[in-house]
């Protein structure tokens, strides 16, 4: 499984429990609303595969419906669950390929491209993106010089969420630097509330912690090299980032429940510990989807009961913006791949993004999407910082790594960072172990 989809699952947990999950076969708007579009694709059915379920699936269906209305094509969404690559792979081999796939990680996109499953994007899509997307988003969609993946949905993983009550009780302000954040944390803990809830049972939250610290401290260049494993994990910058992280991890006053407690905390629990009815910590770090969890699962109001500050700059670096996203790609073997490409042309427009933006739980990397399209101020803020970061955005590193290293429960980076959380005394040894695991995974 992949960490992105875990987060997704987390965000959609309520929807699932409440049974809102819609049937996957919900077809596009059947009625031909004549006059609103050219209906050039009438009679064709575009099949789209993606990891979304529940609310996200429902909201994406709205985007697909808008496409149907414009073009007359019908659409069908297949939810693949966590395992996009296995499911899509078997469908292609079984002669039943979808036309478009929404790929949740750059690593998977690369894998698909290398297997020759994908069709490069049409000139029209490329032209559209030139004005809409920062080059970094196009780079992440490019494999070996060919542009395959159009980033449609993005996430901002550099947000620290806090309970305004906890901060005002302690009399502190949202911090602007790592040092200030630790100091604020210390004051909060002196007020009687542990500072951070760390979701150590879910390894991916720890990789996100590390990535933010690393991106800010070592800079985007090094970050890129490390993500591609061009520099080794024993690099001094890695050891330094781990040592920085240890300043937080080793202090049991800063981490709710100490490291042992953190290792028993899952992501939804960590959000609940801060924003639930019986707060056990003042702050929790994770991406913009925390907001969905707060308003969805906990029925609290984002903006009043919960706020965020951007992940602060670490020791003189710039504030990091770690992002992620889902890229749309067209599958060569799809029967209606031409209509599929038309869908991508639509997805590249601000218009398509604004359909989903209005419903919440969505950020677009598209800089021409009007901020007013987002439903609330907090989302607008996250969207703004993502777009403003422009080319400094870096993708979630563990999502770019081979799954065995960056995306598997109980092994690789997840497991090693959990061990590090348990005992943060020896960053060098941890770096060595990370390198050993990475070397093996990147080779395979």
């Amino acid at each position, binding site marked *: 499984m992949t960490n992105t989809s875990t987060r997704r699952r987390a965000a959609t947990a309520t929807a*699932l429990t409440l049974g809102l999950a819609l049937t996957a076969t919900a077809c596009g708007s059947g009625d031909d609303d004549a006059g609103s579009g050219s209906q050039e694709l009438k009679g064709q059915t575009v099949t789209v595969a993606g990891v979304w379920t529940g609310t996200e699936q429902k909201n994406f269906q709205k985007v697909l419906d808008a496409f149907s209305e414009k073009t007359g094509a019908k659409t069908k969404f297949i939810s693949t669950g966590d395992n996009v690559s296995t499911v899509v792979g078997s469908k292609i081999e079984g002669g*039943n390929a979808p036309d478009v796939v929404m790929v949740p990680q750059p690593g998977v996109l690369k894998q698909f491209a290398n297997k020759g499953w994908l069709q490069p994007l049409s000139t029209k899509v490329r032209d559209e993106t030139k004005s809409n997307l920062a080059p970094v988003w196009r780079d992440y969609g490019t494999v070996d010089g060919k542009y395959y993946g159009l980033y449609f949905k993005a996430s901002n993983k550099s947000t620290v969420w806090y309970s305004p009550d906890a901060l005002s009780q302690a009399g502190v302000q949202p911090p602007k630097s790592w040092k200030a954040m630790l100091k604020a944390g210390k004051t909060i803990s002196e007020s009687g509330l542990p500072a951070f809830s760390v979701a150590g049972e879910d390894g991916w939250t720890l990789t996100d912690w590390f990535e933010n610290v690393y991106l800010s401290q070592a800079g985007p260049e090094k970050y890129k090299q490390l993500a591609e494993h061009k520099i080794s994990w024993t690099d001094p910058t890695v050891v330094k980032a781990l040592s920085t992280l240890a300043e937080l991890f080793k202090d049991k006053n800063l981490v709710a429940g100490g490291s042992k407690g953190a290792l028993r905390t*899952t992501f939804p629990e960590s959000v609940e510990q801060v924003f639930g009815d019986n707060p056990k910590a003042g702050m929790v770090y994770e991406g913009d989807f925390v907001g969905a969890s707060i308003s969805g*699962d906990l029925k609290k109001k984002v903006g009043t009961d919960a706020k965020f500050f951007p992940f602060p700059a670490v020791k003189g670096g710039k504030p990091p913006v770690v992002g992620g996203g889902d890229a749309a790609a067209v599958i060569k073997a799809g029967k209606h791949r031409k209509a599929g490409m038309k869908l991508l042309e639509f997805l590249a427009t601000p218009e398509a993004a604004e359909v989903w933006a209005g419903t919440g739980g969505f950020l677009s990397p598209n800089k021409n999407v009007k901020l007013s399209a987002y439903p609330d101020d907090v989302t607008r803020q996250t969207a703004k910082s993502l777009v403003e970061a422009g080319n400094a955005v870096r993708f979630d590193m563990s999502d770019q790594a081979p799954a065995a290293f960056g995306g598997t429960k109980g092994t690789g980076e997840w497991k090693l960072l959990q061990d590090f959380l348990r005992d943060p005394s020896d960053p060098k040894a941890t770096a060595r172990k990370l390198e050993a695991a990475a070397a093996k995974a990147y080779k395979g």
Partner: protein
Amino acid sequence: MTALSPTAPSKPSPEPSSKASSKAPSRAGRPGPVAWLMRQLSRGVVQLILAVVGLLWLAPAFGLFVSSLRPDQDNASSGWWTALTNPGDLTFDNYSALLDNSGIIDSFWNTVLISVPATVTVVVVASLAGYAFAWLEFPGRDWIFLAVVGMLVVPIQVGLLPVAKMFGAVGLFGTIPGVILFHVAYGLPFAVFLLRNYFAEIPKEMLEAARTEGCSELRIFTSLVLPLGRPAIASLAIFQFLWVWNDMLVALIFADSQSQPLTVALQSEMRQFGSNIGVLAPGAFLSLIVPVTVFFAFQRHFVQGVMAGSVK
């Protein structure tokens, strides 16, 4: 034979021995009443120990059941045992939410759609083969059967990869028929072995008589062997059904999100265990209600089937 209540109910052993000692009190060299008291006492201790063990066995499942009747907030803040003092707080909300959860309900039906055909197919295919191995002549019969005996303990893990590739190539991967086929294949060695041994016990004379009367083999099979073999077939069917119903590993690999059974659907909720008890606990009961009903309805065949197939 190994039913819970043995055919010849085991007599409580203290009785014969108490008779024995009362017959020969001088040899025991102990006054009767004291020995009697000691025995009663030790019997009381045994009763107590077993009662405690029995409760220990019931408690975990009972705990989960109570949890399944509590709202999420309650489960998050206190243990299920606290609900025992005010049972009024228990509700069936989790269950009604579960019944509205199309993902879970779909997967429940998938479980049915996998288990029933997989069981029927194994029974049919294995009966045919079991009869052939027991009563039909053909070259290499014993060797082939030995190979089947050898396959009894082959771990299904060995088959996962190659069969996954094979199914991928023919489009069965990620489909319900694929899951069924895998279960059938790995259920067969045991099924064939069990039925062949049972069929072999049918008196030879009965079959010969039928043959001399000119019955075809198919006819003998359907009207003689199958009815006579009913006890073994019932045990086999129950065992196979249980196995498939409870399986997670095979489905984890061979089913996709549309064809996944309940075990896999629930397993994916496991990741956020603490916050998902409201789905997991009633889900677990939904998944075990069927096998447990089967257990109580067909206790005897159930125990026999499980005993016979335990090694699989």
